[in-house]
């Protein structure tokens, strides 16, 4: 079965979710592009969008249509060539509409898992529940008329476990997209012990066609992305806990969030990132990873408490941020949850005082937007982080420790053979988390 044949019938499990919808979109577009090649005339392509809720699938189809429109508008130059043989399609608008139709025609929404029995390739993007994943994989594998390949989007469960428990004989691969898959460039690819080589070969070509940056990771719970993020988050949580001796809960969260965003020049502070991913998701990922870490306790009581109260973060269906540690209005942080008082406290009410306590910002600090994605910034980061290191303010002190801890976590991922190389860790943080610099650097030496 070649690349095209493998993509003739595909199923996406959890298609209406945040990750599933993105994977569905990218895959459907790739399949449509294949179907429009003259060589593939006469072949039929199908992608099943499988989810448990009909209502969610309805919303999914609307989302996909909008996104395909945007994608078509972007690649109109190429599409005019693709549809050149169609004398009836003259204007850009006609070609764009036709392309949207051609993509949408491939997608079949369904609430029945049975449709996946005809697929040669299964993308799985359901919730991070090992037992459920194994159950669905087994069911499809036992009933399938093909020998399907399973690409799982898990960000934390070892692929080996899924292979063994679902008896897939190496027909499984970790293909971990980052959120949102349509935009984020990174794909982590994780082979289990027995994964057949053709799966990774296919995944590499597929990712390349989707214009993704591929980073291979060893098959260790959490892989590179969550391997860094979960520990980094836990460090942030612990730092905030320390501050609670002298500050209110909301103030402590504010301080650490500000330091991790502004002092470390990151796209968002650590508590905002936890909210973005979802407090419940973070808690769950830690619980999946923790059993595999005998010398470490990757667990946060604070996250447990937040979930108990029902403060979860995450995103609304339209992509807007739900309130978590922080409260958002039009994407901006306006208040911070106080665990002791169980209410959101307006940032305005304590910001000035907290900022004063942190001390002067480093003089040469630049906003993340001004430095992200730019080449040749090493010199700047070296001089900036030397400045931070030399400062004696509270903010700079916490920032320095944080910076070094992040580096330590990253280096350990290489030492523990989770990542193949230091560069891979840096690539994951830069492309998957939009950091302006990789954590493994000499900026503070």
């Amino acid at each position, binding site marked *: 079965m070649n690349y095209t044949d493998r993509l003739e019938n595909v199923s996406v499990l959890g298609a209406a979710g945040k990750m599933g919808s993105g994977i569905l979109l990218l895959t459907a577009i790739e399949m449509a592009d294949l179907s429009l090649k003259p060589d593939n005339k006469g072949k039929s392509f199908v992608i099943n969008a499988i989810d448990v809720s009909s209502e969610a699938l309805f919303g999914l189809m609307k989302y996909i249509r909008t996104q395909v429109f945007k994608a078509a*508008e972007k690649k109109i*130059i190429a599409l005019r060539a693709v549809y050149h043989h169609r004398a009836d399609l003259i*204007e*850009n608008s006609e070609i764009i509409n036709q392309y949207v139709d051609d993509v949408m025609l491939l997608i079949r929404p369904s609430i029945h898992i049975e449709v996946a029995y005809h697929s040669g390739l299964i993308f799985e993007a359901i919730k991070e529940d090992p037992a459920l994943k194994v159950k669905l994989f087994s069911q499809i594998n036992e009933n399938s008329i093909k020998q399907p390949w399973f690409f799982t989007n898990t960000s934390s469960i070892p692929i080996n476990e899924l292979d063994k428990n679902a008896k897939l004989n190496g027909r499984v691969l970790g293909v971990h997209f980052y959120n949102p898959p349509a935009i984020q460039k990174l794909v982590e690819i994780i082979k289990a012990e027995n994964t057949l080589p053709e799966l990774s070969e296919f995944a590499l070509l597929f990712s390349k066609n989707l214009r993704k940056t591929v980073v291979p990771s060893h098959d260790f719970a959490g892989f590179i992305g969550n391997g860094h993020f979960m520990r980094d988050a836990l460090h942030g949580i612990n730092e905030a806990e320390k501050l609670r001796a002298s500050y209110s809960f909301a103030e402590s969260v504010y301080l650490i969030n500000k330091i991790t965003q502004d002092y470390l020049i990151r796209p968002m502070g650590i508590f905002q990132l936890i909210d973005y991913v979802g407090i419940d998701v973070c808690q769950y990922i830690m619980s999946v990873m923790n059993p595999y870490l005998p010398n470490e306790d990757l667990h946060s009581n604070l996250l447990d408490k937040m979930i108990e109260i029902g403060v979860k973060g995450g995103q609304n269906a339209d992509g807007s941020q739900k309130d978590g540690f922080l409260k958002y209005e039009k994407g901006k942080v306006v208040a911070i949850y106080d665990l002791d008082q169980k209410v959101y406290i307006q940032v305005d009410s304590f910001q000035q005082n907290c900022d004063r306590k942190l001390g002067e910002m480093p003089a040469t600090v630049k906003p993340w937007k001004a430095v992200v994605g730019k080449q040749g910034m090493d010199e700047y980061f070296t001089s900036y982080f030397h400045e931070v290191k030399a400062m004696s303010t509270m903010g700079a002190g916490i920032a320095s420790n944080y910076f070094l801890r992040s580096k330590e976590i990253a280096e350990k991922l290489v030492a523990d053979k989770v990542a193949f190389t230091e560069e891979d860790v840096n690539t994951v943080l830069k492309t998957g988390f939009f950091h302006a610099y990789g954590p493994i650097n000499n900026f503070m030496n």
Partner: protein
Amino acid sequence: MVAGYNTISMGTGRKEFNPKKERPGIEEYMREAGQAVIKMIGGAQNVDEAVIGNFIASRFNRQANMGAFLPYIDEGLRYKPAVRVEGACATGALALVTGIRSVLAETADVVLVLGIEVQNTVKAIYCADFLAAAGWAKERKDGHAYFFPGKFSDRAKEYYAQFGKEKTRQAMAQWFANAVENARLCPTAQEHHNTTKDLFALGMTEPNPKGFLDSLNVFDCSKVSDGASAIVIVSEEGLKRIGIPKSQAVEVIGFGQAQEDITKPPSDHTKLSTTEVAVKKAMENAGITKEQLATVECHDCFTIAGIMATEAIGFAEHGKGPDFVLEGHTKRTGKIPFNTTGGLVGWGHPTGATGVHQAITIWEQLTGIAGDSQIKINADRPYGLTINMGGDDKSLVAIVYKRAE
């Protein structure tokens, strides 16, 4: 001609432009420009007739029958005659010529000419579909997604091949830089707020055929604009009626029109042959030579078209336009300042209004009311020239002006 008024050329580049927010439509732009002119000429009762220049509101705004907006501009225009003219991007000057002919035929003494286009109703990619109507419809299928930019990219490519790419690209970047520098001085210009420091470097951005075109970058292109421009064309009689002194008006000394076959490709991609004919006609009609020109408003829908225009007028030999521009002759401080309020690249290109805007810039310059944009007009070179082009050098109007005496 007298009493000109331009609205802001609205679109990307203007601080107040937000594509997600509701914006004024054709009605508001027509009303703003029309009312401003009517006020200057002492009221609607002084208008004998009107000419509306509009290229393609039928697609951008689902609107035709444009003449019927006159009473909406001012009730005093109710029941007055009006006509809407169209010649793609040369629409504005065709509207002017229609008014001029009316005055020359003595069927009117005061003609209100209003050019209007509102194009930001759709994304650029669909805008390209609408504007493609300026070319031959049967060529659309094989044309580029960005049809007209594609046409001029082909011209630029041929020009690079014949006369050298590096120098031509440098001249195009210089044209862009001049345009924005001039636009910064004109409050209604679309690039008025542009603060880029190194405009030349930006203009030198390598064209990218994957995202746009093989031989033009976006800075080589005029903008997608909303705007209206209005002016009145008057006889001597008419000027007396509206009570404006002669010294505040410009006189139309001559004009030239030329049409080329829309179904045929250009005879030479490196030349604007029809432009050359129209300019020659206008200059002969006016009885002047290019050496007597103080300033030119040319149709730089693309920077390469600006360079070719310097050759079509005869300022530079064929193939030497890039040198002429690089030597600084077309700058506002140069030998013959071009497009002193930014031209189509810098001021903007609300297609149906452009020809009228060009006339207004010349009127302002020659009568000394151009504000920060004002250039020096020497007594021995008192003439101004406008060139308005429709399609790929297909519909041409050139007009020669001088301050009225």
